[in-house]
């Protein structure tokens, strides 16, 4: 019976065409696929509710796009900083890694600050001016649910990146862990690209 588990000479037991380069990376991708389904469901739901609504304000007129265009730019730049930090740690350049991952975290925090300002301004000024409210209008409800769900992801990403930075500085994490954290951060950027288009521009 032992013949059934005998591997050919020279082959690694766990190796197959489906074996990932890195199991942690595969785990993160599986998580992101599940997370993408959550965002996908919300965005599809948003589209259907908007299509079925008799009236829907022009988003760019109510929400404004100057601040969110800056927030989009900020997340794209922070994604670039993230890949530059990965590039640095892969080359063993720790000071450059610290600088770019620190900037990535800072970019996330500024994004959250902008979102807090945007929400405050909407709730206290813009929505009342347009006679819209979170509880009564699907326009406002879907906006806060989608951007809030994304904002929580950014918050999680900032905490995650800060933990990775601390672990690398203590010598416990290496390039592999930074790459996995980067996947999460780029996913947050990718989702914002879609939210910016569907919620603010269309």
């Amino acid at each position, binding site marked *: 019976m032992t013949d059934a588990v005998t591997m050919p000479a020279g082959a690694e037991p766990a190796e197959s*065409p489906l*074996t990932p380069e890195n199991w942690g990376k595969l785990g993160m991708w599986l998580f992101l696929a599940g997370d993408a389904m959550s965002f996908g469901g919300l965005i*599809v739901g948003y589209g*259907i509710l908007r299509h079925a609504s008799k009236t829907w304000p022009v988003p760019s007129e109510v929400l404004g796009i100057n601040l969110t265009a800056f927030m989009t730019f900020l997340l794209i730049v922070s994604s670039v900083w993230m890949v530059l930090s990965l590039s640095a740690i892969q080359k063993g350049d720790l000071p450059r890694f610290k600088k770019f991952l620190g900037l990535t975290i800072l970019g996330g925090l500024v994004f959250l600050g902008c979102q807090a300002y945007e929400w405050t301004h909407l709730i206290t000024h813009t929505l009342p001016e347009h006679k819209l409210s979170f509880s009564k209008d699907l326009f406002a409800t879907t906006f806060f649910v989608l951007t809030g769900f994304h904002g929580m992801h950014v918050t999680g990403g900032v905490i995650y990146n800060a933990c990775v930075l601390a672990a690398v500085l203590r010598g416990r994490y290496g*390039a592999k862990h930074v790459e996995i954290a*980067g996947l999460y951060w780029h996913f947050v950027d990718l989702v914002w*690209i879609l939210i910016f*288009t569907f919620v603010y*521009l269309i």
Partner: protein
Amino acid sequence: MSATTHKEPNYMGVFWWLLILTILEIGVIYLPIAKIAIVIMLIALAISKAALVALYFMHLKFERITLGAVALSPFVLCVFLILMLLPDIFPH
């Protein structure tokens, strides 16, 4: 297994493309053309930007096909969701 061995992508090149596409997106909404044409252009630009992030920043272009299949699975399910809801979106 070893760490990533592929050649490092041109990250700054991708950044400039993302910036250009974002500026185009903002410009598109002010075009004096039919709304449906604007929507199609915006969706195409957003998908292009998302693809750039996934392929180059998330290194999907250099990964095994397994990860590509995992990454695409949510989109398949979203299309399925839309198809299942079509009778409700366009009732007779």
